[in-house]
């Protein structure tokens, strides 16, 4: 509900009062984010924002596959884990620097995307969901298997990954923050460019009606594989960067089902099939989870009501999010964004906000007005 009114207010504001195009809004958003560290924010809070950025990139890569071409993926953690473990193995076993291990990890991830993509293309619907769910779980079990512990570190994973920058806190956190921000920015630009090209239109056509797309001469298999590879590539990048930024360890949890589910929660919160969706959703989730629930709420309860939350509250957090997503999906099965953009279509300017359409026809519209 709140989101709906927020969006309405935003579009009203943007379109009527200041006539600000969404691209400018995005630009403002990134500028604001880049200025945050200069305000002398406590590095602890900076952590939350770094996490949000990484989560946003991860969710965006998932959304590229699911929201734009309609291929269900319940196993995106596969790429995250591959990214994480690849860079971990390369940097700890061979001592290679980060700027070699991460691109290598991405290469491995792309290979995995091809290997996983080909069979996935042959199945649809529930079967695809199950297959996608299975892959990371298979690796999860294999990685924890006792005989392979010397290589993969078993339950505890691989530790001691090097940092990105040879700096000391708080400058380290600031540098890492900018790194995550740059990556988010670049990813957004990439997805934006894709969405507004013929490839982007073709992706939507595949999402809408594969058969009709084929009838238009589109090699659907090629495009699906393409989206798989790009999605996997960015997903792997996220996993490898994350490994060096937080805790500097790679653990089997990097392949867990809950991690596969995270981009679904996040993207649903923000809006499926849009560029702003994963970013907004990631920020909402991160701030809600790491700040409100972990920091603010316990503090408030402690100071005002002398209550301490039981340790089980940890688990209740994810429960709350699952519950929220559950309710969201039931009320708005097409995702929050679709619901809001449907409502927004009452306002004529809303068409400019619809990220699915290509930018090209907007230029035509402006020409038409002249």
């Amino acid at each position: 509900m709140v989101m709906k009114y927020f969006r309405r207010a935003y579009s009203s504001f943007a379109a009527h009062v200041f006539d600000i195009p969404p691209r400018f809004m995005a630009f403002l958003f990134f500028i604001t984010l880049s200025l945050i560290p200069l305000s002398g924010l406590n590095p602890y809070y900076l952590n939350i924002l770094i996490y949000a950025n990484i989560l946003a990139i991860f969710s965006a890569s998932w959304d590229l596959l699911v929201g734009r071409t309609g291929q269900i993926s319940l196993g995106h953690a596969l790429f995250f884990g591959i990214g994480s473990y690849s860079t971990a193995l390369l940097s700890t076993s061979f001592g290679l620097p980060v700027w070699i291990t991460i691109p290598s990890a991405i290469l491995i991830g792309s290979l995995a995307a091809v290997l996983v993509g080909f069979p996935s293309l042959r199945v649809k619907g529930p079967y695809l969901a199950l297959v996608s769910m299975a892959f990371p779980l298979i690796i999860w079990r294999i990685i924890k298997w006792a005989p392979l512990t010397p290589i993969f570190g078993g339950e505890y994973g691989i530790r001691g990954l090097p940092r990105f920058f040879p700096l000391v806190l708080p400058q380290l956190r600031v540098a890492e923050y900018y790194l995550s921000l740059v990556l988010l920015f670049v990813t957004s630009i990439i997805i934006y460019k894709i969405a507004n090209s013929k490839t982007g239109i073709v992706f939507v056509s595949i999402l809408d009606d594969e058969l009709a797309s084929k009838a238009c001469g589109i090699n659907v298999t090629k495009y699906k594989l393409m989206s798989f590879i790009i999605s996997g590539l960015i997903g792997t990048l996220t996993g490898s960067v994350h490994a060096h930024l937080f805790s500097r360890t790679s653990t089997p949890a990097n392949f867990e089902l809950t991690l596969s589910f995270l981009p679904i929660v996040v993207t649903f919160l923000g809006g499926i099939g849009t560029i702003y969706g994963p970013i907004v959703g990631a920020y909402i989730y991160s701030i809600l989870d790491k700040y409100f629930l972990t920091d603010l709420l316990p503090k408030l309860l402690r100071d005002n009501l002398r209550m301490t939350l039981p340790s089980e509250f940890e688990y209740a957090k994810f429960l709350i999010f699952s519950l929220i997503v559950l309710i969201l999906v039931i009320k708005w099965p097409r995702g929050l964004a679709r619901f809001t953009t449907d409502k927004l279509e009452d306002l004529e300017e809303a068409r400019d906000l619809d990220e699915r359409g290509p930018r090209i026809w907007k230029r035509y519209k402006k020409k038409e007005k002249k």
Partner: protein
Amino acid sequence: MHLLEVENLTKCFGGLTAVKNVSFHVDEGEMVGIIGPNGAGKTTLFNLISGFLEPDSGTVKFKGENITGFAPHKIVNKGIARTFQVVRPFHHLPVIANVMVALKSPRGAKKIEWLKTMERKAVDLLEDVGLSDVALEPAENVGHGTLKRLEIAKALATEPDLLMLDEPFGGLNPLETDFLTKSITRMHLDEPARGILIVEHKLYALMKIVDRVIVLHQGEKIAEGKPEEIAKNKTVIEVYMGKGM
């Protein structure tokens, strides 16, 4: 050499033979109609030619090349375009983008030029079918008659040498039917080398524009000839009206 040559095409679904030993051809510049009562196998025939179904036996040759069993998108790239009886627009895209999906895109350096002209080409195509004023509407908001015309625009965008229309007049009112008849005739005149194959139920509209008619009944070809001949053909009348008419 015929533009399209179909020989002894057969397709069974379980116990049902949908298409049985059908053979016919379409030449360059010809407009051929396919008629027959419901269930005659007309759409199945289209699916077999356009690659959406694989025949159990028989061949499909296009410009002399055997294209039987090729993937649908390959067949489109060879030059055969088809529309669907039940319209299949891309709901999330505006009308103009629907057409853009189907536009052929050249490789390499020409691509940048093409992006600039892509818009214009799409607009031109929409003009041809009379849809310029709804170019920016999302396809899901647009009416049935418009969607039917969009189907044709999409097919034309692929620059086909053979255009296959599956019941293009379905669900259109007399005004729309008239407009579409004129559009198809104009399309035919604009591209004299292009062949057009139309499946249709509205005989009064179809018989006026085609050069030749093929009649299917329960999967088999039962008659072929000029529209006037077919209209008088006893077997055809029986098949449509029942015996004793």
